[in-house]
C-alpha cells in the first residue's frame, strides 16, 4: 500500500531493471562480459594458471626477467614473460587478479555498508549522534591511508585481511559524508513525513525509504570507490606496505616491475598494469550504467 505512494525498490524489479538496462547499452554489455570473464578467470585461476606462482618450489630465479614468449628451463612457454623472481607473468597475473578483486570488492562493500549506515543514522537522528559520527569522519579523513596501514602492519601484522581492514578504515568516512549530505536533503521531503506519520519502524524508514532516495550520489561514489580500493591497495603495495611479496597482487606486480620499467623490461610492469586498468575500467563502466538505470528519478 505504501509502495504505491513512496518510491521503493523491490529486489526483483531491481535485478530485472539492472539487467535490462545493462543489455540496452552495448558498451556496458561488453564491459560486463569482460568483467565476468575476469571474475571467472580469478575464481577458477588455480585450475587454469600454468604455474602456481605462490609455490616457491615451482619458480626459479634461473628463469628471471625472461621476455614474453621465452621458453622455460622445463620446456614450457612463458607467454607474457617472467618477473624478477622467475614467476610466469600470466600465472602471477591470474593469481594477482584474485587478490586485487577480493581486496577491492570486499573492502569497498564493507566500507560502503558501514559508511552508509553511519551516514544515514547521522542524518536521520541528528543532534549528538550526528556530531559524534561526523567528528569521527573529520578525524578519519585527516588520516593518510599509508599511516593507518603502517600502524596496522606494526601492530597486527601483514596479510590480505589486514590490508582489507586498513582500506575499510580509511574509506568508510567518505561514504558516510556523502550519504549524510544526500539524506539531509531527502529528510525534509514530504514522503519522509508521510513515512513518519505512518509510524513505520525506524530501520524501515532508514533503509526502505531514505536509502533508496540517496542512492544516485552513493552509486557514483560507490563505483568510484571499489575502483579506488583496488587502486589504493596497489598504491600501498607500491609504497611497500601492502601484501606479502610471495603472494603478489596486481599492484605489487606493477610495483616490482617499476624499477626495471625504464630499462626495457616493460612486461613486468605494463601487463599487470593493463590488466588492472581493464579490471577497474570494466567495473566502472558497469557501475556507471547501473547508476543510470537504478536512479529512481531518471527511471520513471
Amino acid at each position, binding site marked *: 500500500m505504501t509502495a504505491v505512494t513512496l518510491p521503493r525498490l523491490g529486489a526483483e524489479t531491481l535485478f530485472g531493471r539492472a539487467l535490462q538496462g545493462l543489455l540496452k547499452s552495448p558498451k556496458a554489455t561488453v564491459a560486463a562480459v569482460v568483467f565476468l570473464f575476469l571474475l571467472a578467470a580469478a575464481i577458477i585461476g588455480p585450475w587454469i594458471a600454468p604455474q602456481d606462482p605462490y609455490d*616457491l618450489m615451482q619458480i626459479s*630465479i634461473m628463469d628471471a*626477467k625472461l621476455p614474453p614468449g621465452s621458453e622455460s628451463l622445463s620446456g614450457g612457454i612463458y607467454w607474457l614473460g617472467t618477473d624478477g623472481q622467475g614467476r610466469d607473468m600470466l600465472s602471477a597475473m591470474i593469481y594477482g587478479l584474485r587478490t586485487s578483486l577480493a581486496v577491492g570488492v570486499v573492502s569497498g562493500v564493507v566500507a560502503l555498508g558501514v559508511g552508509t549506515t553511519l551516514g544515514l543514522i547521522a542524518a536521520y537522528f541528528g543532534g549528538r549522534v550526528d556530531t559524534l559520527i561526523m567528528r569521527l569522519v573529520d578525524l578519519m579523513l585527516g588520516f593518510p591511508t599509508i599511516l593507518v596501514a603502517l600502524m596496522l602492519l606494526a601492530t597486527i601484522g601483514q596479510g590480505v585481511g589486514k590490508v582489507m581492514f586498513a582500506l575499510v578504515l580509511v574509506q568508510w568516512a567518505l561514504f558516510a559524508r556523502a550519504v549524510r549530505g544526500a539524506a539531509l536533503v531527502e529528510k525534509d521531503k514530504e514522503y519522509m513525513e508521510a513515512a513518519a506519520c505512518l509510524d513505520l519502524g525506524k530501520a524501515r524508514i532508514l533503509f526502505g525509504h531514505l536509502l533508496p532516495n540517496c542512492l544516485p550520489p552513493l552509486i557514483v561514489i560507490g563505483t568510484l570507490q571499489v575502483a579506488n580500493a583496488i587502486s589504493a591497495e596497489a598504491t600501498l603495495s607500491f609504497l*611497500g606496505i601492502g601484501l*606479502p*611479496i610471495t603472494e603478489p597482487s596486481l599492484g605489487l606486480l606493477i610495483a616490482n616491475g617499476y624499477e*626495471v620499467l*625504464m*630499462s626495457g*623490461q616493460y612486461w613486468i610492469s605494463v601487463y599487470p598494469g593493463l590488466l588492472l586498468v581493464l579490471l577497474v575500467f570494466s567495473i566502472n563502466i558497469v557501475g556507471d550504467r547501473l547508476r543510470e538505470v537504478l536512479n529512481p528519478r531518471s527511471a520513471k
Partner: protein
Amino acid sequence: MKLLSNLRSLSVTVSVIGMLSFSPVLAADLIIGSSTEPSALDPQFSRTGNNQNIAAQIFDRLINPDPNLQVTPNLAESWQNVDPTTWRIKLRSGVTFQDGAPLTPEDVIYSLERVKSIPNSPAPFTGNVGAIASMTVVDPQTIEFKTKGPTPDFIEQVGLVYIVQKKLADGKSIEAFNDRSAAIGTGPYKVKEWVPGDHITLVRNESYWGKKPAFDNVTVKFIANDAARVAALRSGSVDLIDAVPPGDVRSLSNVNGLKLWSIASARVVYLALDASRDESPFVVGADGKPLNPNPLKDVRVRQALSKLINRRLIVDRILDGAGDAAGQVVPDGIGGADPSLRAPAFDLAGAKKLLADAGFAQGLGLTIHTSNDRFSGDAETAQALGQMFAQGGIKVNGVVAQPYNVYASAAGKQQFSAFIFSLGTTTPTSATSLRNLLMTPDKEAGTGSFNRTRYSNPKFDQKMKEATSEFDPQKRIAQLQEATRIAMDDVGVIPLFWPKVYWASKANVTYIPNRGEDLMATLAGTAQ
C-alpha cells in the same frame, strides 16, 4: 618582476667580475641528482652519509678517506704515536676558512669537544672522540692528545670529525648553520642556497688550500625516487646521479651520451640467523610450533643453509651481475679481509647431507624476513633465498617484506629468526664492522651494537680485543683476519654479496667511484 630583473642584472655583474679576475677558463656548472639529502648544514649534527655528502664539500676533516677508504692526510698533515696513549697531530699550515679567518688548533679542539654537546643529534660523532682523555696545544701547528687507553686506530676515529670555526659556531644553534651564517668551513665549496626537499647550490671556494675542483657552480637536486632520478639523467635535467639501481645499469650503458662509473662496495648484504636462543619464533616443526632446541644452534644447519645459497645466481639474476659473492664481511682491499675466505660454493648434496646429519632432512620450517626499501634488491634477495631453501628440503613458510621503519625495530627486538640486513664499512679496516656485527653485545664496552641475533663467541671476542689494541698494522691485520676466520667457520652470519655501486653521468662528466658510496662534486671532473 622587478626582483627578477634585479636578479638578472646581479648575475650579470657577478659573471663580469668573474671574467675579470680569473683566467679565461669557461665557467663549468654541474647539476647533480642525489638519492639522499642532508637534514642540516651543521656538519656535526648527523654522521649519516646523506649529511656527510654535503658536509665534506663545505668542511674539512683531519684526514680524508680515499676511494678505497684508506686514510690520506687532509687538515692533519701528519700524525705520530709518541707512546701508547699519546698522539701528536700536525696541522696543515696556511689553511683559511671561507670567511678569511685562519684555521687554528683551538678550532680543532673546539670542534672535537663540540660533538658531545649537539642538541637532539640523532647520529652523533661521540664515538669518534670517545678515546680522547685530554687535548693540549703544543704550538700553532701541533696538538697533543692523551687517550684513555691504547688506541691504535686513533687517527681513523678523530680524523673523521668535521672542523668548524670556533668564533662562528660557539654558542650557536643549528639554525645558524642552516641559515648559512655558521656554515663556513675550510672546504672546496661554499653554500649559496639550501632549499630543503628540493636542492642545494654550492659555489667554488676560490681560496681553497687544496686542489681546485673542476666546477664553479654546483646544484645538488634531491631526487630520492630511483626511477625519477634515472629519468632526470636521461631527460638531461641533471648531469650526474648516484645510486643507479642495478636493473637500470644495462640499459643506461647502452645509451649514447651517458657514462657509468662503478666500484665494488664495502657494504655486505647478509643473512642473520637467530642461533643464540633455545627457541626462535620462526624456526618451526611440522606442527608450526617453534622447535626446541632451536636447530639454528647447530652449526651444521647454519653451514647447510649457507651451502644452499647460490650466491652467483643471486648476483646474476637479481643484481644483473652488479655485485660479488661474499664469504666474509669486508671485500679485498679493506684491511682485515682474508683472501683465503672465498664465498661458499652452492652445494645441494653437501647441504642435504649436513641437514640429514643434524636430523633435519625434512620437517624444518623457516620464515625469512626482509626490508623492502632499504637497499636495492632486498626483498628480491629474500625471495630467492626462499626458493633456494625450499629446494634444499626446508619448508619455507613465508617470505615477509616490511618497510624498514617497522622492520628495523622488530629485528632489534629479536622478533625474527632468519633475516636480511646490510652493513656498510666506512673505515680502512674491518675492525669496526666486526665489532658492531659479531662481538657479544655489551653496552659498557661498546661492542655488538648491530649484533641483532646476540651472537656470542668468546674465541672471536678475544681475538678482536687483541686486534684492536695492537699498534703494529701488519699484526693487527693478521689478527683481524684470524678473527674473521673464526666467525665465518662458525657461520655467525651468512654473508651473501657485496653489491657494486654505480654512478651515471653525461659523457662530458667524469666521476671517481668510491667505496664510501659518496656523491660529491669534488669527485667529478670534465671529460676531454
